[in-house]
């Protein structure tokens, strides 16, 4: 098979504020026709820059300074074009761009124009490259949309991107990229922003269309699980240089370069032994100070053993009312049950993982615990040493006191820190709000908190923009710890971080929990991450806890239909355990309507948490025999 793309010693420079930054330093690799090549690396390794060099859509500050990108179009007459040297705005390049080589991006929600219909944007791509009548074009676009998995292509044509979910937007992007049947599809982290089961559906879609159209795919990703499942060849990048490249079997079975081995060791997976630690690519050191107090942590095993509850949620429901209407017509209000009778117990000193896909209601639960929203029904009880407190009835000073005890860490490290405050002010703010200590004492505590999360105290007067994502997340952690909370709610704290940084932050979470005897509610959609940090894991779907168990039990022995499906969608960085793509047809999401008996939720009978022993509970019809769940 001939090489469709052959990149030879490519170098790309960025001119930023008078400085020259080399983003790509002499990269060479090939993309054979009809094959999938995975480009792997951390953020900043130059993956996307290479993709954009191929497309000729580099930002203005970037320039290709050396090397060539030879493109031999298998559908063309055999002439080879150097994409690095043809004028990027010339007719030849424009014809290739979008016609012969297409790209899809990471953020499906922002990749399409919100002001134009999906049909308009896709047809535009078609008519740019094909001489085709408008009515014939419409048919082509409709066929493409239905290939991309839209159940009702006619309706999708007239939809605006903001009316569609993230998964559907990504399908629309794919339809747009493929409508001209390109020879090469560049997929730039196409599933990173999506839930794990949608990810499986999108990967399957790309694979199916690839087989149908006979195109090549350049898959850019940092997820080695995705690589193992789709790639034929792998190129590993680090700091703009190729570390390793070759067929996927070689890369996974005998990784030669230490960088790839390190990358593999930094990713949590389900085969880790209890107590096994991730090895981040760059370790951080941190230490505790006297003001933070090691919470007499040497007095024996943490409180998980005795299982004393800290917070009990019982029968929580929350219904959101939205009106299906627009500016010119009003419609009947529709009710969405975000949380539907949720029971959960958070025990002192444990890390309780809460897993679920977007829209399952997990954020609503954490907001209810924070008292940011009020449930329609149900109770939240805080257990102290000798008394119980009804959290929902708190107000005034009692509520302020409660807020001190529950702190939150947010998903987005950029948006959760004020860009106009210095780090010292950010970490000190909770102390100021609650009037704790003198200015001097506050400053001392802030310094110790910085060291606790492994940041240099010389950075205290800097502003958040001068920190990386992982460092910002550690600042957020320091802020949350300033009040010495009993419960820390972590809402997807690592999902915006790179794999290597993710390992750092996860290890920090684990160490601090042990040192400070903290209790975590760790909310995430990443099963492997939850598996790594949690003691117990609760799986949430459609506003209910469908299954809860200690971590070593749950993923070894999942009982609920939904949990099993979720597990099946996780790509492993292991060639012997590939995803069963045939499971993922249709929309990819699994709702209560798809659950077979005895998991079917019926309105005429309440469901029960079935005890499977070892603290493993599953939501099923009352009276179901445990044996029936494991055929």
């Amino acid at each position, binding site marked *: 098979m001939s090489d469709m793309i052959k990149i030879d010693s490519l170098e790309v420079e960025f001119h930023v504020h008078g400085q020259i930054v080399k983003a790509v330093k002499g990269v060479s690799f090939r993309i054979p026709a009809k094959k999938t090549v995975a480009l792997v690396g951390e953020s900043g390794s130059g993956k996307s820059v290479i993709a954009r060099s191929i*497309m000729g*859509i580099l930002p203005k500050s970037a320039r290709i300074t050396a090397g060539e990108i030879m493109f031999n179009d298998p559908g063309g007459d055999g002439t080879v074009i150097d994409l690095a040297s043809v004028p990027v*705005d010339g007719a030849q390049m*424009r*014809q*290739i*761009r*979008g*016609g012969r080589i*297409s*790209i899809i*991006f990471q*953020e499906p929600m*922002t*990749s*399409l*124009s*919100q*002001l*134009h*219909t999906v049909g308009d944007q896709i047809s*535009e*791509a078609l008519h*740019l*490259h094909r001489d085709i009548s408008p009515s014939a074009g419409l048919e082509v676009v409709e066929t493409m949309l239905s290939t991309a998995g839209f159940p009702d292509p006619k309706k999708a044509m007239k939809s*605006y991107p*903001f*009316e569609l979910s993230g998964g559907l937007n990504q399908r629309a*992007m794919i339809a*747009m990229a493929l409508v001209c049947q390109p020879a090469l599809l560049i997929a730039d982290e196409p599933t990173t922003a999506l839930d794990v089961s949608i990810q499986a559906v999108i990967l399957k879609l790309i694979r199916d269309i690839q087989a149908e159209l006979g195109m090549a795919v350049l898959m850019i990703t940092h997820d080695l699980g995705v690589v193992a499942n789709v790639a034929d060849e792998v190129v590993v990048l680090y700091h703009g240089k190729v570390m390793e490249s070759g067929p996927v079997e070689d890369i996974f079975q005998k990784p030669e370069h230490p960088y790839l081995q390190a990358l593999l060791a930094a990713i949590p997976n389900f085969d880790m032994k209890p107590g096994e630690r991730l090895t981040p690519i760059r370790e951080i050191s941190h230490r505790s100070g006297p003001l933070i107090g090691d919470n007499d942590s040497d007095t024996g095993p943490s409180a998980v053993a005795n299982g004393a509850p800290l917070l009990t949620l019982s029968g929580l429901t929350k219904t959101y009312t939205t*009106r299906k*209407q*627009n*500016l*010119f*017509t*009003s419609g009947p209000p529709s009710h969405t049950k975000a949380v539907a009778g949720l029971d959960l117990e958070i025990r002192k000193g444990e890390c309780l993982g809460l897993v679920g896909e977007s829209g399952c209601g997990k954020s609503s639960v954490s907001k209810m615990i924070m008292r940011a929203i009020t449930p329609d029904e149900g109770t939240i009880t805080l257990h102290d040493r000798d008394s119980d407190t009804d959290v929902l009835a708190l107000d005034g000073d009692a509520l302020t006191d409660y807020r001190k005890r529950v702190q939150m860490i947010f998903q987005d490290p950029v948006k959760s820190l004020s860009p106009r405050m210095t780090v010292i002010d950010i970490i000190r703010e909770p102390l100021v709000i609650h009037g704790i200590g003198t200015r001097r004492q506050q400053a001392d505590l802030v310094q110790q908190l910085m060291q606790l999360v492994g940041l240099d105290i010389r950075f205290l007067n800097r502003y958040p923009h001068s920190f990386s994502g992982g460092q910002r997340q550690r600042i957020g952690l320091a802020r949350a710890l300033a009040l010495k909370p009993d419960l820390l709610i972590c809402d997807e704290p690592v999902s915006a971080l790179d794999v290597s940084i993710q390992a750092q932050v996860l290890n920090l979470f684990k160490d601090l929990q042990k040192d400070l005897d903290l209790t975590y509610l760790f909310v995430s959609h990443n099963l492997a991450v939850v598996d790594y940090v949690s003691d117990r894991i609760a799986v949430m779907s459609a506003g209910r806890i469908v299954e809860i168990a200690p971590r070593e039990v749950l993923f070894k022995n999942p009982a609920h239909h939904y949990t099993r499906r979720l597990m099946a969608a996780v790509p492993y960085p292991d060639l012997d355990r590939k995803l069963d793509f045939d499971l993922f047809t249709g929309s990819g999401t699994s709702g209560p309507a798809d659950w077979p008996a005895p998991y079917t939720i019926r309105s005429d009978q309440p469901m029960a948490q079935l005890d499977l022993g070892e603290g493993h509970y599953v939501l099923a019809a009352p009276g179901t025999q445990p044996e029936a769940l494991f055929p």
Partner: protein
Amino acid sequence: MLRYVIHRMLIMIPTLLVISALVFTIIELPPGDYLESYVAELQSMGETVDEQQIAFLREQYGFGAPAIERYFQWLTGMLQGDFGYSFEYRLPVSEVVGDRLFLTVLVSIATILFTWLIAFPIGIYSATHQYSWGDYGLTFIGLLGLATPNFLLALILLYFANVVWGTSIGGLMDPQYLDQPWSVNKALSVLEHLWIPVVVIGTSGTAGMIRSLRANLLDELQKQYVVTAKAKGLPRNRALIKYPLRSSLNFFVADIGNLLPRVISGAELVAVVMSLPTTGPILISALQSQDMYLAGSFLMFLATLTVIGVLISDLLLAWLDPRIRLSGGSSA
């Protein structure tokens, strides 16, 4: 759609009522009334004042009646198309304003067109060539335009127009055409004079618009969908016009509501300096002499323009932006 438009029209009624009450109150606020200023003016010129005539006038125009009563008289009059009587001109308000209204509208429309024609290309150029010499140069000129006081610019341009082209100073036409019926020559003379007030009134608006268009377009150009459009193979200009430019138009459309009254009222000082036969100077003198009905009706005219302008921009926004059209609506 129709429901929404009717709903919006109905809302305009209470809005205008509240504005009319405010206008009336503000005009009433200074002590005294038109007749007192009139008497004071006569006395200061050393003329004798006929007490009987004043009392007659006071009776005639209902100055003795309580404010509430006069307010409702004015209001009901306006609803019937009777805008009251100007004391100063001793003519019905509609006759005083009527003739000048045409010229005002002419100057305003010309100014708006001038603003758009200049601001759009420059704004787009500045945004797409950020930090280039062209951008810096145009930005500098724009800031100069923003900073120069209108009346100063007016005097400078009048001087040069007179010295270089011999255009007569002041007014919107050569003196010989004043009070003449419209003819081709008169229209040409108007055109010859028109460009100065248009440039003067439009300069700061143009400069402001360049700045906001540049800022809005720069924001949009950063966005991912622009890269998507390029990745499709769209030629650069077509991609620019269809996607980011269209998105950055929202601010511009939302501004239409303010445009008409700003152009008309912003032109008052300039109109005084250049002695333009537009409505601006009338408003100023009416406010000075407490010519109640003239000033009040004029302010109501501006308010109505604003309210209609806002309605137009709301409808245009809904038409342009599907996010507003489809996901908007009251949250109640």
